[in-house]
């Protein structure tokens, strides 16, 4: 599988730095990071990514608005967007209620979940041999006292 290009838009530099390192370690995709939201669309125009990982709450620019603008942009209309958000609850993540058709991953996200999601859009990862590569989690019901199940990388998936 040919390496793809991923654009990360998130204002948390410490997070994007680690995310970039991990993705480069686990995949052969090209990773571009934008920490200022207003640079996201110019960067997308320039880089022509195959997928955009987009934070929701950012200073000065809401990730949701940004996604709407990208969808309206003829150059970016077909680029899949995966939200990485710190504000959704587990059930919302499941249903993708806020995503309006986008896939939504709740922070903190494990590499295994993230890789599973990327594989869904970009094809199987050229995996480095690392312990983070795990099968995507099963469709488990919620349990408040337990680790939350993360959203499946499907669009508006119905509950079990």
């Amino acid at each position, binding site marked *: 599988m040919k390496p793809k290009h991923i654009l990360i838009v998130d204002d948390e530099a410490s997070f994007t730095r680690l995310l970039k390192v991990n993705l480069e370690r686990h995949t052969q995709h090209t990773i571009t990071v934008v920490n200022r939201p207003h640079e996201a669309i110019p960067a997308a125009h320039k880089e022509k990514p195959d997928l955009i990982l987009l934070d929701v709450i950012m200073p000065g620019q809401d990730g949701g608005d940004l996604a709407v603008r990208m969808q309206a942009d003829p150059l970016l209309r077909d680029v899949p967007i995966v939200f990485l958000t710190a504000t959704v609850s587990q059930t919302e993540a499941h249903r993708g209620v806020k995503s309006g058709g986008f896939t939504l991953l709740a922070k903190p996200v494990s590499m295994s979940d993230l890789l599973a999601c990327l594989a869904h859009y970009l094809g199987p990862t050229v995996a480095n041999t690392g312990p983070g590569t795990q099968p995507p989690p099963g469709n488990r019901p919620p*349990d408040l006292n337990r680790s939350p199940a993360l959203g499946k990388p499907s669009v508006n998936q119905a509950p079990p």
Partner: protein
Amino acid sequence: MVPPPPPGQPKEIIRLLHVEDDPFMGRLLREILGKAEQFQFTVQTAETLAAGLACLAAGPVDVLLLDLSLPDSRGLDTVVRVRRQFPDVPIVVHSGHDDERTALAAVKLGAQDYLVKGQADARLIVRSIRYAMERKRTDDALARERDLLHGILNNIPDRIYFKDSASRFVRVNQAMADKFGLATPEAAAGKTDFDFHPAADAREFFADEQRLLQSGEPIINKVEGQTAADGSPAWASVTKVPMRDQHGRVTGLIGISRDISALKRLEASLVEERSLLRNLVDHLPDYIYVLDEQGRFLIANEAFYQLTRTVTPANFVGQTASGLFPPPVGLDLEADDLAVLRSGEAVVNREEPCRLTTEPDCWLATTKVPLRDPGDRVIGLVVISHDITERRRASRQLQAANDELLRANTELKEVHLQLLHLERLQSIGRLAAGVAHEVKNPLAVLRMGVDYVLSLPLPPTETDTAAKVFEDMETAIKRADTIIMGMLDFSAPGQLHLKPVAVNQLVNHALSLVRHELKSNGYVVERQLTPFPVFALLDAQKIDQVLVNLLTNAFHAMPDGGRLTLRTAQRTIANDETHHDAGSREGARFRPGEPVIEVQIDDTGHGIPPEKLDKIFDPFFTTKETGKGTGLGLTVARKIVELHGGSLEINNRPEGGVRSTLLFKAHKETA
């Protein structure tokens, strides 16, 4: 002629004093008198006036025979001197002068008779003496009568007058003269009423008097309005009787007029006072009646007539209450009034239902006061009843309004509590969203960091330890994230996806989700589920979450194992059943008779300390040790249940452990 006394009867003794300076005349008289047949004379003789006066002073003398030519007194002066000192003794003058003028003068000066010496024989002398005594007695009696009359006329306050046939005053008494402003009573003579009264009054008096003079009919106690001297109205009670001559002809009239103005004024003021009182009594809205000492009606007022309808001014006087009103009302009223009359103890403002009217729910405040005479004897009873129906009604309404207000206040307090609770939850929700963003980002960095380090080659000696450390770190991140997740769930539970759900199936599913817990500690699980499927309109995933939460709590309460009982039932809400939770807006949402599905989960654990029972639904309240619970489980669980229109209650069971009870409206397809 005085007849001689019958034989054997003693002769009348006459004590005679003879004042005579001629001794011959003295002897002669004794001789003459000694022969008198009817009388026995005892004769004293005095030769001077002084001696004679001394004899008069000394003893009883029936008659005085007086010579006018004495050594110490001469002529008529002698009569005057005797009369001045002794007005009562009859005097016969025995004089040597045969002079008619002197004789008349002597009689006018007080002598009773006049004899001329030598012309009077024995019989004439005796008769003269005897007649003189008689005349003196008559004169004195007349004088007394006259004095008496004058005394009366001049001292009586009544006005007395005599009029002739032309209504002219002949004579008036002092009181009349005073009234007319005359100097003396005599000044009235010849005047008429027209001289003293206004013409209109005088004409009326004149007409009255002319009628009287013609008919001879007296006027007795006629009340005449007059005008007093000062112009104020005056009244007189007037009696006029005809005066007749010896032939019975009416020659004039006697009038007696008594001033009764003061009496009249008193009477008028009494009438006025009485009328005022009567007016007052009649126009008072209170019901008033007065009884005599026997309990018989004397007075009642308009209000009382209108209250009873049966009592009228014409029919009640002298009646008793039992005669006026049908039994038992009349009898009871009479007994009550008589009791007050007998005891003399007043009843004041006694509140009682009114039984004298057909009006429903009429109430009175009744006062009964005994009437007493000046000797403090009870002579009657005054009863005054004030209608307090409106006051009582208003009072009752006020009470009702007050009760209503209290109820409203209680409800308001409850709502206030609920709002407070809600507000707290909302602020917690906003806080949760903020905290989630601020905490989840660092957690994301940590999670990425752990993944990064895990992908690094580690020295073989560290591999085991590192794997453990990274696992702990991952767990810690998950735990922190779980709390944030719970908070977010609570703050924005989102929309429900309701479908008819088979409740027994849902319970079984929830149990299957916690099966690994079941296995680990040897719990006994008992299912008491309905043998038929029951349905409720639920979001299966959310209720699953609730059930798992409740089951997890049950396991945590029984760390050393125990019995878990799951129960489902379909029933209807009982009449006295309330689902009341002061802290919840959704409290008491079920109505009696409503079909519900009930799910109960019983454990045999340590239960919940009573003082903490009312806090278990509060966010971040937990009884579990750190790390075992977020303090959000029940908060979210209840919120989810209430969003379904259901209720969640958690109680300690009397036999120990906790019972969680879920109620949902039964879905109508199955109800």
